[in-house]
């Protein structure tokens, strides 16, 4: 068992070394971008991460899963296209058939559902099928903007992504919703491996924890260990493959370290490891360039924001490679 694992590790390392920035039959690395609250800049973050990766010479596909009136095309400075996610969700076309090229080298995108005048039916939607089809596409990176839709419908797809990025703004409302998102994320993970009764009991305990009426301090780790019908493994997995926290729109020096504070709160309150990957400063050139229909990273490639995206991309790409090599 051990030997197999070892030789696989070595093999992966070789693949990484030889596959210099071009796709060689390797499955694409999928990054999910999500948030607890709408309007924190998911679309801007997704498009900018995509542009940055494409500038680093990777083949990149951006997928807009926003079902509430997608506007990835605006962030990319493009006119909305007739082809969009609806064609895939209605099973008229495959994913690869609705990919739209952009004027930017190595960057393509799939437009979200834009024509909202026809009511939308997600009852037949199969997230596993979509996830499998995404993995077959020939790109180095696929960035999925999850939008503020019904998250339960996409939960398993979100789980299967290689990186799960949660965007928050420094506003208290957004921070609060980020914690709620994290809570529901933990619970959804635990639910799949728990008996219904045990899960129901856990939820009640969590409710007491939230309302400060528990006698003892609560810890997921000890609770999952001590109670029947629950397993610790989903929680351990969350700690091994932590959510990546990104703070967007920092306007003052004093909020620079907000990400570290939120990381610490997750650790002390939930016992959950969250990886803080960096912040993006508030920058007036962002909305100005959206108004001019040109992505800020193209219009003003030397704005500090570009450097912040670059270091985030490098951090995420490197941490993955280090993991594989180890």
């Amino acid at each position, binding site marked *: 068992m051990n030997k197999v694992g070892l030789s696989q590790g070595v093999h992966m390392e070789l693949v990484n070394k030889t596959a210099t920035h071009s796709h060689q039959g390797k499955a694409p690395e999928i990054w999910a971008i999500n948030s607890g609250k709408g309007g924190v800049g998911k679309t801007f973050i997704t498009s900018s991460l995509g542009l940055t990766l494409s500038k680093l010479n990777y083949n990149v596909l951006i997928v807009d899963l926003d079902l509430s009136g997608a506007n990835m095309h605006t962030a990319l400075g493009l006119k909305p296209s007739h082809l969009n996610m609806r064609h895939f969700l209605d099973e008229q076309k495959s994913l690869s058939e609705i990919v739209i090229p952009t004027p930017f080298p190595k960057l393509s995108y799939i437009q979200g559902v834009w024509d909202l005048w026809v009511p939308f039916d997600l009852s037949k939607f199969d997230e596993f099928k979509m996830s499998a089809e995404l993995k077959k596409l020939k790109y180095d990176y696929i960035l999925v903007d999850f939008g503020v839709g019904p998250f339960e419908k996409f939960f398993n797809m979100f789980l299967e992504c290689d990186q799960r990025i949660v965007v928050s703004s420094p506003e208290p409302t957004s921070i*609060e919703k980020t914690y709620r998102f994290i809570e529901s994320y933990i619970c959804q993970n635990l639910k799949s491996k728990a008996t219904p009764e045990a899960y129901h009991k856990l939820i009640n305990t969590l409710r007491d924890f939230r309302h400060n009426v528990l006698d003892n301090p609560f*810890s997921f780790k000890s609770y999952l260990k001590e109670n029947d019908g629950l397993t610790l493994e989903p929680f351990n997995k969350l700690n091994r493959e932590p959510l990546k926290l990104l703070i967007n729109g920092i306007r003052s020096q004093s909020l620079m370290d907000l990400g570290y*504070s939120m990381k*610490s*709160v997750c650790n*002390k309150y939930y016992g959950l490891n969250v990886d803080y990957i960096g912040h993006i400063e508030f920058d007036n050139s962002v909305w100005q360039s959206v108004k001019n229909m040109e992505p800020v990273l193209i219009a003003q490639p030397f704005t500090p924001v570009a450097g912040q995206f670059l270091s985030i991309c490098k951090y995420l790409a490197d941490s993955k490679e280090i993991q594989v090599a180890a």
Partner: protein
Amino acid sequence: MLASNSRFNFYEVLELNTNSAQHEITTAYERARATYSGENPAIYTIFSEQEARELLTLIEEAYSILGNKTLRNIYDQRLLGNNKSNPEDLTYESILSASRLIFNEAKGENKKIVYVRDEAFEKEIAEQTQWTGVFLKKVREYKKYPIERLSDVIKVNPFYIKAIELEEPTNLPAPVFVRGYVMQISKELGLDAKTVADSYMKRFNK
């Protein structure tokens, strides 16, 4: 909040590894302090003010041990050593008292002060109601207690002790500090600290 066994793991309190470098400890402490003091939006709806204050106390304790190389050494030996330590050996107080032992042994300056008992003067001390700087000095000299040593023990600058004895307010900090110094001096001289300080401060404030 924190499980009871994490309470005395100062590395967990500051969210560090046991092999963290000294500068990482300082950074972690500064971040933790910023998180749990003041009105940081990150703790809003998660920790109450009371809980944040408790966490902050823990964080300060953790840093006063881990931020000091000597204390961190003692702590590491107990936390990571082969012998499983009791949680009470890992408390802030326990580490601090262990360090005092080492510190005192190294200094070896614990000679007892001997003075000749003078019954008449003892009676005068007992009946004293007007505590002046002059009289405090008289008591100190009678008990053969040098200013430098007194300063070492009570950790008050000898300059201030002299100023208290000479009653020189211009050379002293705010009255609230002076009162504290007078309390400490009289305690060390075996006097009733409260009576002395009350009486001294009454004159001092005039």
